């Protein structure tokens, strides 16, 4: 009981003393900050990507994104580490219906294609590596639900190598362009077309692949023993 009261006191104080003044004193901005203004005016010239969020995520703040992919990666590793070795999967008592199985094998390529589309167009339209990766992961999840198990090793290799190439392409930026994760190792191309914006589509695809396989890894590990 005393804990409840203290919790209430703590939260009320936190809200009243810290959150409330912040809320009151941060009206909406009416113009871009100088930094955002730079991205808005120079971003297209610099990187050739119409989607500025993508430009920031993949290149300007590419180190963040690499870090974020790493976070997901170590979360996957950590979950795998915690859950420990899997016991042999027992064949399900009740196999999924034939209709569902067939439907799934029909749908899966479409889902994956859709995912690839999202991350390939990340520099042009909303969405990109993360979103596409999730779409792919959900496709695989679908397969898992109907107990059609894939060899996990495939994902493991995909995950490892997409990550490895991501870093390698980033390092190429140091050698061929201005710095780590610079997308201008490839020509910027025609603004607004799919093969433009230098290495952004390539990097975002690798990110998508990496995120997707990592998410599969998480789901796979958390499913635990059957």
């Amino acid at each position, binding site marked *: 009981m005393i804990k409840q009261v203290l919790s209430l006191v703590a939260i009320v104080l936190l809200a009243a003393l810290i959150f409330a003044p912040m809320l009151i004193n941060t009206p909406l901005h009416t113009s871009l900050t100088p930094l955002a203004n730079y991205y808005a005016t120079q971003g297209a010239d610099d990187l050739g990507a119409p*989607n500025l*969020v*993508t430009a920031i995520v993949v290149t300007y703040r590419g180190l963040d994104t690499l870090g974020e992919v790493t976070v997901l990666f170590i979360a996957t590793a950590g979950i795998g580490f915690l859950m420990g070795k899997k016991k042999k999967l027992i064949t399900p008592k009740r196999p999924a219906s034939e209709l569902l199985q067939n439907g799934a094998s029909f749908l899966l390529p479409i889902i994956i294609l859709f995912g690839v589309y999202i991350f390939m167009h990340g520099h042009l339209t*909303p*969405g*990109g590596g*993360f*979103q596409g990766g*999730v*779409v792919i*992961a*959900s496709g695989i*999840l679908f397969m898992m639900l109907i107990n059609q198990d894939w060899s996990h090793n495939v994902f493991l290799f995909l995950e490892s190598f997409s990550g490895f190439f991501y870093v390698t392409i980033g390092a190429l930026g140091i050698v061929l362009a201005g710095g780590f994760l610079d997308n201008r190792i490839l020509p910027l191309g025609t603004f607004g077309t799919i093969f433009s914006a230098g290495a952004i589509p390539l990097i975002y695809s690798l990110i998508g692949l990496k995120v997707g396989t990592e*998410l599969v890894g*998480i*789901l796979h590990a*958390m*499913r*635990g023993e059957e």
Partner: protein
Amino acid sequence: MLNTVFIIILGSIMLVAAFLAVYIKNLVSSVIAAGIISLLASLIYLLLAAPDVAMTEAAIGSGLTTVVFLLALKNIKQKEEDTDD
């Protein structure tokens, strides 16, 4: 103006969902309620002209997170059954 109305409506639903998520006894319902908060949040992101965030929140925040929760619950349920046996 329309935005404001939308946000107020969505926000109210989200707050209700949040209370439900905290106080519903059934864990699965609670997880679903939390997922609804995220889903509605992604709508708000659309209104705030952040489609990238909206897609991500919908896919990861509401979609995958909910799945992960449900997987965990399933895992725990299974253990419960194992011990019952």
